[in-house]
C-alpha cells in the first residue's frame, strides 16, 4: 500500500521501527502516524463504537472527528490519526468507552511555558503564513502556531498548480507554494513559528489575549499577545447515508493526508462523492497515485468545481455522474461496495436507477465549512452565510472580528481559494499591526492594494457568489435573506 514512485511528490521516510497491533508486529516509519502505519498494513477497523458497537476507522485524519480512538501503551482514547509511531509501541483496538489505567502517580503541577509577542497567528496555512509575514514586515513581533509538523496547511497536500495571477503564485503547485512562503517567513527575523502546536482556547485577561496551546500533545504553552489572527482553515463536511461510518468512508482530506503526506494508498478502488473542486482534484490525485477511480457522483445537475479539473479526470476515463447520490455503503467491517442512484427534480432517488460499484474506499468531498471553533469560543459574533460555507465570524474590511484585537483570514473566514486566503492573510497581518499602533499609516496603502486584488479575483462568476457572501458577513453588512 506504500507509494514509492509519484509523478509529483517525493516521499522521505524516517527510520524503520516496529509497532505491535494487538500483539502482532507491524513495520512502520518514524514520522508517520499510528493510523497511517496501520493503514499501510491493511488494518481498517481502529475501534468499536460506544453504544452500537459499530466498527470505526479513520475519517478526518487530522485529529478532529475522533473516529480513530485507540488504546496505546495502555492509555485509552488516543487519536491514532495524529499520534506518531514510536518503536515498540503497543496498540489495541478500543472497544467502546474505556477504563483509565490504574496504578498511576499524580503528575506534578508545573507552570506553563509563557511566550509573549505582539501578534499571535493561529494556523500556518496560506492565510496564516501571509499574515505572519506581513505583520512582521510591518514591524510586529509575531508568533505563528500550527498543529502540523510542517508549515503550509493544506498546501502541502496539493499536487496541482494554482490559479490566479503569477504574482499570486499561479502555475505553481501547492506543495511548492508552501515552501516559498515558509522561506519568506524564515527570512523575516521577527516571527517565531511553533509547529505541532494546537491552540485550544483564547482567553481575555485584562488587556492581554491568552492563547492557550498544547505542543506535541505534551506541553502546555501560554501565548500572550495583544492581537490574535485566526487562520485555522476549514473542516470537511459529512453527509448522512446508510453506513456512512463504515471504515473506508473517508473525508477527501484524509485521503490526501494518507496519500500525499505519508505516501500510503488509501485503497485500490474509489468512489468519490462530490464534483466540486475538492472531489475533482482528489480524483486526479488518486490517479496520479495509481489508484483506480470508479466514478465521481454529484447530486447537483452540474459540476460544481472548475470545468478544467473535471476534464482532467474525464479524459483519463473517470465518469462524472451529475444528479446522482450515494445511497449506502455496504460491507462487513469495511467498505466493499457503494450503491448510488439517480435523483429526480426533488432530490429523491429514482427507483430502479441504483448502481453498485465494487470499491474499497468512498471519498466524501461534499464541501468544506470554516473552522470557527476558536472564534466562537472567544466570543466573536458568528453568522450563517451559505455562500461562505456555513457559520463565519462577522468582521470588518480589515478582517477584524467583533472582538477587538481578534482577526480572521482564509478559509476560517469563508471557504474560498488559497489565493484569496493569502490576500486576506496579508490584510489581517497588516491591519493587526496598524491597530496595535506598530505599523505607520503608509501601510494602509498595502491593505488597499490587497483589497483591489481580492476584488479582481472575485469578479468572475465563482468569485461573485463569494463576494455576495462577504457582504453579508461584514459588520453592519446586508442581512441574510
Amino acid at each position, binding site marked *: 500500500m506504500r507509494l514509492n*514512485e*509519484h*509523478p*509529483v511528490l517525493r516521499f522521505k521516510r524516517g527510520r524503520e521501527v516496529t509497532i505491535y497491533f494487538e500483539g502482532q508486529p507491524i513495520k512502520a516509519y518514524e514520522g508517520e502516524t499510528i493510523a497511517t502505519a496501520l493503514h499501510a498494513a491493511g488494518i481498517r477497523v481502529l475501534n468499536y463504537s460506544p453504544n452500537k458497537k459499530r466498527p470505526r476507522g479513520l475519517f478526518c485524519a487530522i485529529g478532529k472527528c475522533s473516529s480513530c480512538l485507540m488504546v496505546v501503551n495502555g492509555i485509552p482514547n488516543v487519536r491514532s490519526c495524529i499520534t506518531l509511531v514510536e518503536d515498540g509501541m503497543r496498540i489495541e483496538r478500543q472497544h467502546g468507552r474505556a477504563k483509565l489505567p490504574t496504578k498511576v502517580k499524580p503528575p506534578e503541577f508545573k507552570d506553563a511555558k509563557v511566550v509573549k509577542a505582539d501578534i499571535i497567528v493561529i494556523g500556518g496555512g496560506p492565510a496564516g503564513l501571509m499574515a505572519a509575514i506581513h505583520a512582521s514586515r510591518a514591524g510586529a513581533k509575531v508568533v505563528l502556531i500550527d498543529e502540523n509538523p510542517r508549515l503550509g496547511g493544506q498546501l502541502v497536500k496539493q499536487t*496541482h*498548480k*494554482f*490559479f*490566479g*495571477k*503569477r504574482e499570486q503564485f*499561479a*502555475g*505553481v*503547485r501547492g506543495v*511548492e507554494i508552501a515552501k516559498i512562503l515558509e522561506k519568506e517567513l524564515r527570512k523575516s527575523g521577527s516571527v517565531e513559528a511553533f509547529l505541532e502546536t494546537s491552540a485550544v482556547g483564547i482567553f481575555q485577561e485584562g488587556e492581554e489575549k491568552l492563547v492557550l496551546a498544547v505542543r506535541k500533545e505534551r506541553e502546555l504553552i501560554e501565548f500572550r499577545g495583544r492581537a490574535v489572527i485566526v487562520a485555522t482553515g476549514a473542516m470537511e463536511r459529512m453527509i448522512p447515508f446508510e453506513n456512512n461510518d463504515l471504515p473506508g468512508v473517508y473525508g477527501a482530506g484524509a485521503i490526501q493526508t494518507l496519500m500525499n503526506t505519508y505516501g500510503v494508498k488509501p485503497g485500490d478502488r474509489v468512489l468519490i462523492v462530490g*464534483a466540486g473542486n475538492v472531489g475533482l482534484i482528489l480524483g486526479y490525485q488518486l*490517479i*496520479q497515485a*495509481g489508484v483506480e477511480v470508479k466514478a465521481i457522483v454529484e447530486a447537483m*445537475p*452540474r*459540476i460544481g468545481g*472548475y*470545468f*478544467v*479539473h*473535471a*476534464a*482532467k*479526470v*474525464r*479524459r*483519463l*476515463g*473517470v*465518469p*462524472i455522474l*451529475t444528479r446522482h447520490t450515494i445511497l449506502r455503503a455496504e460491507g462487513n467491517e469495511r467498505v466493499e461496495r457503494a450503491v448510488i442512484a439517480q435523483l429526480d427534480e426533488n432530490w429523491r432517488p429514482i427507483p430502479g436507477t441504483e448502481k453498485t460499484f465494487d470499491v474499497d474506499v468512498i471519498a466524501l468531498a461534499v464541501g468544506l465549512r470554516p473552522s470557527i471553533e476558536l472564534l466562537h469560543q472567544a466570543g466573536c459574533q458568528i453568522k450563517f452565510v451559505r455562500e461562505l460555507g456555513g457559520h463565519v465570524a462577522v468582521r470588518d474590511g480589515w478582517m477584524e472580528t467583533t472582538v477587538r484585537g481578534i482577526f480572521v483570514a482564509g478559509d476560517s473566514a469563508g471557504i474560498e*481559494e488559497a*489565493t484569496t486566503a493569502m490576500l486576506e492573510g496579508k490584510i489581517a497581518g497588516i491591519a493587526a499591526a496598524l491597530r496595535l499602533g506598530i505599523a505607520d499609516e503608509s501601510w494602509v496603502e498595502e491593505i488597499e492594494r490587497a483589497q483591489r486584488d481580492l476584488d*479582481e*479575483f*472575485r*469578479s*468572475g*462568476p*465563482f*468569485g461573485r457568489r463569494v463576494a455576495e457572501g462577504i457582504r453579508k458577513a461584514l459588520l453592519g453588512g446586508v442581512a441574510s435573506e
Partner: protein
Amino acid sequence: MSEIPAYLKNGYITPEELFSIIPKPSEERLRKGPVAVPECPQEIPCAPCREICPTGAISMPTPNDLPIVDYDKCIGCSLCVQICPGLAFFMVHYVGDKARITMPHELLPIPERGEEVVLLNRVGEPVGKGKVITVVPREKTKGDTPIITVEVPIELAWEVRAVRVERRG
C-alpha cells in the same frame, strides 16, 4: 437559472461546443505549424497563460475572462501548455495525414520518445495508437508539468487529449 452548458453536465467539451465559444484555427494555420488551443470555456480567475505568452498572442482583459488565442500571433512555443494550471492548453499541428497533438502528461510512467502509446479521447476511451514524437520532462518545462507530443491520425486531431502508456513487464 440559466441553461446549464453541456460541458458542465458531462465534464468534457465536444469540439462543436468548444468552437461555439472560441474560434477554430484554420486548416492553413494548422498546417503551418503547431498552434495553441485552450479548452478553457469557463470564466475562472486565472491568467498565467497570458502572462507567459512571449508574443502576446493570448488576450484576456481580466483574469476572469476566457483566454482567446490570436492564432496568427501564436508561435507554437508550448509555454502555455507547460504553465496552464488547469492542464487545458493543447497544441495541434497538421502534418500530412497526421496531426501532432501536444499535451500535458502528469502521470507515471512518462513515455519515451518513439514509444507507441494508447490514445484516449476526452472521456478516456481508447481510440487508437500513436507514436510519441517529443517529450519535455518536468525539469525542463517552465511550468513544472511534463509535456508530450503524439502523432495521431488527422481525423482524431480533435478527439485525442490524453494517452495511456502500456508497458509489458
